[in-house]
Every structure is written in structure tokens, then in C-alpha cells.
């Protein structure tokens, strides 16, 4: 059966750590890092491999810093 896998890339220097992407993810992929970026924000990062590439996180990110990839595997 074809399965869909996804992955996200977060521009951590532009992320403002707002956390709006976290409740938007149905797979609980995203969490805020304990580390901070150059501006002092605890940036968002993926914490598991469950991404399906649904784009929800990218669509609600106010700063447009999430890029999404999706691939069908047989």
C-alpha cells in the first residue's frame, strides 16, 4: 500500500518561537527547542519522524519559516 512520508525544514534563525505551529500539527512533530537562536528565541524543531507533509504547520506559521516535503512510498 502506498504510504506518504513527509519532512519539514525550519529556518531556525527566522523562527520567533511563537509555538503556533505546535497545536496545528496532527502528528505532534514539533516542539520548542531548549536552545535559542541568534535573536534569543527558543526556535521550533521536529522531535520525531511522524511527519506526513500535511503542511498544517507551514500554513499557520506567521513568519513563513517552514518548508514542507512530501513523498509517496510504495
Amino acid at each position: 500500500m502506498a504510504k506518504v512520508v513527509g519532512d519539514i525544514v525550519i529556518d531556525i534563525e527566522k523562527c520567533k518561537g511563537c509555538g503556533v505551529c505546535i497545536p496545528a500539527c496532527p502528528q505532534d512533530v514539533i516542539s520548542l527547542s531548549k536552545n535559542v537562536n541568534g535573536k534569543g528565541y527558543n526556535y521550533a524543531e521536529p522531535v520525531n519522524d511522524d511527519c506526513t507533509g500535511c503542511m498544517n504547520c507551514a500554513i499557520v506559521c506567521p513568519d513563513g519559516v517552514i518548508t514542507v516535503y512530501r513523498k509517496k512510498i510504495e
Partner: protein
Amino acid sequence: MANITKEEIRKPENLVYKKTDLLTDKALSYCPGCGHGTTHRIIMEVLEEMDIQDKTIGIAPVGCSVLAYDFMNIDMQQAAHGRAPALATAIKRLMPEKFVFTYQGDGDLAAIGTAETIHACNRGENIVIIFINNGIYGMTGGQMAPTTLPGMKSSTSPYGRDTHLMGNPLKMTELVAQLPGTIYVTRQSVHTPSNVRKTKKAIRKAFENQKLNKGVSFVEVVSNCNSGWKMTPVQSNKWMEENMFPFYPLGDIKVNTD
């Protein structure tokens, strides 16, 4: 994701979403989690999908989005506080082949610019108005706006808006829907993925309407001002659902495009 690496997924052919190039690479000047950024992005996505970025002129307001022209990579003009609909009127009349829109906060559109808003809507100017209603003067430090909810705290109503003393909140969107010059009036939000999708459709419809040459399309976006409301972004979105939406219900108010 058993036997596939991230590198195999992160290939150009698998790319499904990235920030549109119609937004510049400048970091947005908005606070973390502010709906202004999301709304900027979906407007630019609509222009890109319609392929009208070269034919569109936007009017930036006074308010937190005063620098919208730094972020939206299209032709823009910044208006004096509240005067965006007057400026849009002039631009659209001089260049009727252009798509013209204003982008305005509630202080801009519903306080100092009330006259310009109502008269442009009543005249039926063939423009799009995008109205970001966060119930507060965000830029200047969270003062009460005409849109501030009854009982809502702001820096100039620290004990909550007392409507006996401070008047009632103004529902500009319902008001302009009464005017003959508006053809499409809707209220949306951008705090969840499904709301962003709906708002994007509404903005698309508003720009498509401009081809009809029949009047104003007015899209309110009920938005958060987490700094002014003194909440975290996620808390502010929840507060907005619980408090703003009952007073400012989402959905189409007028669709008169036939």
C-alpha cells in the same frame, strides 16, 4: 518512516510548501505569533496564484503593518492614517486596469479612517479592503479601539471597557455590508490551518471580484494582538476563539457578485 532517509524526502521534486517569493526575505517586524504575518503571506500567495503580482498595487496603513511595503514584494503606497480607501480610490480610478487593495488595522479603518471606509464602500469603489481586526491599537501600546470588546482590558481601559462610559464596539463589517457599494463582505481568521485556508479562499474571491467592476470586496480578519492583550501567542488564539468570535462571528455576511 522505516527505510527512507530525510535526505531522500527533502528533494526538490517532493517540495510541497515554501514561503512565496512575493514576500521579501526581510524578517517580519511583527511580534511572535501575530496574525499580520500570516495574512500578508496568504495575500501574496493569492496574487501569485492569480499571476497578478505585476498588476497589483497595495496600500499600507498606519499601525503595526505600516511597513507592509517592506514585506510585500509588489508595488505599494503607504497612506496617511485611515486614508487608505481614499488613496485606493484615486489609484484605481487613474489605473482601472490594476488590482488595488488596502490593508488596514481596526484603529486605522474603524477609528480615524471611518469616514474614508464608509464612503469608499458606499461609492462602490472597485477595490479590495483587507481589515485586520485585533480589537486594539497594537502599534502604539495596546490602547482601546472602537472595536475593543465590552469588558476587554486595554492600556486605556485597564479595568475593562465600560460601554456606558466608553461607548459600544463598532462592527464595521456588518455596517459596510448594509451599503449598496459592497459586493462581497466576509469575516475570517488565520489562527488555525483550516481558517487560513478559508481566509485564503475569501481573499482570492475578493481579488477575482475586482474583474467584475462592481464594487468593494471587504475581508475582515479577526486577529490576535498577543502583545497588546498580554498573552502568549497560543493563549491569545484561544482567547480570540472564546471572546472575539462570539462578538465577531466568522463567515460570509454579504455575497452579491452575480
